């Protein structure tokens, strides 16, 4: 057993941290054009497609530490859905003519009766959207049939559901969905990609929650009230200790799931996503209490992180969905 990052993973993390420090932290995130530019840089770094490059593909664990590092740095671009859409696009190329080469900035929407919300983030930077829909009733633990379609990301196809820059939630318009060319997809490929998506979204949650711990610890050291840092009070100390414990616990469950998800593991995946969706959100809520009023002001970074985590918590199965799957496991 080895719990440290491999050399190449250290490099992935360092590169991701450097990018978010240099580019994301200084970007004008209110601007859609700027977010598109940032997305092109993500693509140039090879992150959205790192899982779908055949023999050169990174491992899921590589992708997990990358996603976590980017999220810890504050990056909220929809990297995880893009990674999953690449996996599905590549995996289903034989029988559906959908290839990763044929997709340009693909992002994924899970639609229909799937457990995920039929909305997605990041569609503003997509040129094409891979829509996957389950054609069977999806109860946790049951087998699902899948169809996929490619929808152009032009204005008439995308409906903005919620616009809270820089986190834009969109859906696919009814007309675009009904006009799309649906193809049956190999359920094994889609389900596997979906499980990988669950692990990756757990990693994103861990990264966001860790960034909240970092933010709150720093604030607790600097914020002076009554003549001493608020972090000198045990009430704050103990809250932060709990937050750290939650994040560490989720992190290693996520890493362990990443190692076995490609072999078809389900229990580990359900546990990783369910716990991350529950405990990372708890951590973030707790962070609001440490930061006080500034923490629920839109001018502060925490509200955005919180909303990003809410989205990640529901992508590729909510906590409730994964707990329910474990009940029948």
């Amino acid at each position, binding site marked *: 057993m080895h719990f440290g990052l491999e050399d190449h993973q250290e490099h992935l993390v360092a590169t991701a941290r450097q990018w978010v420090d240099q580019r994301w932290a200084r970007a004008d995130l209110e601007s859609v054009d700027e977010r598109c530019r940032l997305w092109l840089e993500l693509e140039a770094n090879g992150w959205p497609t790192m899982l779908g490059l055949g023999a050169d593909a990174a491992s899921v664990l590589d992708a997990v530490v990358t996603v976590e590092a980017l999220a810890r740095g504050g990056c909220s671009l929809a990297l995880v859905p893009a990674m999953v859409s690449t996996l599905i696009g590549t995996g289903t190329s034989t029988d559906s003519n959908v290839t990763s080469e044929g997709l340009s900035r693909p992002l994924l929407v899970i639609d229909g009766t799937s457990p995920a919300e039929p909305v997605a983030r990041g569609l503003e930077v997509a040129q094409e959207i891979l829509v996957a829909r389950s054609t069977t009733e999806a109860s946790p633990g049951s087998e699902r049939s899948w169809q996929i379609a490619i929808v152009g990301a032009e204005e008439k196809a995308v409906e903005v559901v919620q616009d809270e820059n820089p986190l834009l939630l969109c859906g696919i318009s009814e007309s675009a969905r009904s006009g799309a060319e649906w193809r049956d997809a190999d359920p094994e490929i889609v389900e596997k990609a979906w499980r990988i998506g669950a692990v990756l979204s757990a990693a994103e949650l861990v990264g966001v929650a860790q960034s909240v711990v970092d933010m709150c*610890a720093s604030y607790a050291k600097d914020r002076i009230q009554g003549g001493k*840092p608020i*972090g000198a009070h*045990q009430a704050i100390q103990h809250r932060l200790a709990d937050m*750290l414990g939650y994040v*560490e616990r989720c992190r*290693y469950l996520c890493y362990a799931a990443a*190692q076995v998800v490609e072999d078809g593991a389900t229990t580990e995946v359900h546990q990783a996503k369910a716990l991350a969706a529950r405990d990372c959100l708890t951590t973030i809520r707790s962070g609001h209490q440490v930061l006080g009023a500034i923490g629920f002001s839109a001018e502060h970074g925490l509200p955005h992180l919180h909303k990003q985590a809410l989205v990640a918590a529901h992508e590729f199965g909510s906590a409730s969905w994964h707990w329910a799957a474990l*009940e029948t496991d």
Partner: protein
Amino acid sequence: MNFTFPDNAERFREEVRAFLAARPPGDYKVDAMDGGYGSGAVSHEFMRALGERGWIGLSWPTEFGGGGRPMIETLVLAEELALASAPMGPLTGSDQWGWSLISDANEQLRQDLLPKIAAGEYTSWQGFSEPDAGSDLLALTTRAARDGDEYVINGRKIWSSEAGSYTHGQVLARTHEIGDGGSRTRGLSMFVVPNDAPGLTLRPIVSLTGEVYHYEAFLDDVRVPLWRIMGPEGEGFRELLRGLDRDRFWGRFHKPPAMLRNLRLLEDYARTTRRGGRSIIEEPGLARRLAELRAETEATRLLFYRFGWQLDNDIPTPYESALYKTLADELGQRVANFAVEVLESDMMIGRDRGDLSTEMRQLYLTSVGQTIAGGTSEVLRTTVATRGLGLAKS
């Protein structure tokens, strides 16, 4: 990163399982109660059986009588024994006591103790806390003074686990007085005191289970030869810190596997027992809580393995033992609460449920003290915040 056990560890796991299958753990004579930490009851017979196989001190260097095996095998041994609820009570404590001796003791002390620890003959209790020095251990008043070729120890210790069943105490005492403004961490020394030393009296303290787990130790002019000191005189604080840190890890490492075992037993019971016209597992929310507890336990198990890996690779662990102990102990209390939910009144009165209700009753009652023993959760959270997150001390 790789979470797969190496081949040697898996082979050793099979060896341990074969040992347990050859003679079930329940066949061994029990000498003292199960403290509920996952290390089972105390059976000296079982400890001797482990010693015969070279499984106490498994990872000690061979020149000190150990097995020279990788640390992962010691972890696997503890995990498998916990999964089987084997009465290994003193095992990990003995293992770590040996490591302390190898690291810090003089040659005479090593020769006196190590072979018999490895054989399962010698076991040790901790004489750290005192009636007025609990969370503030440095307020201790026990004194040790040199008198010729002996130390004379006077004082009073309390909350020493299983002291009456073990053979030696590790007793912390002040050997040098501190002047005004001097650091209380200076001038402390650790001594190894045999239980049969004249002047040492152990008073059993009956716990809420009705059994004895803790003892109070009275040291009245207890004389020990100079070589029974651990490390240099006055440098016992380092030994204390290391002992506490190790204890929080090794004293809790077996807890996650023990919890997994308990959850499995409770699930089996809930699936096969009907109440109110349905299986207990079908009661609203129960299966969900089981899934949550199991996931948290798996996550905690991974954290302990990670900690072991850090120790094995000499990676600093400034806060981890405090954090992981707190997580494990509080989770253990929730598992115990779950047992109440599943077994209801059967657990309290032990009616018609045989071993399961008795075992879970013990688990529930002993879990109360675990967030206190070895450092309260409150003190340890402060440790995490100050050492792990760099917050100011209050």
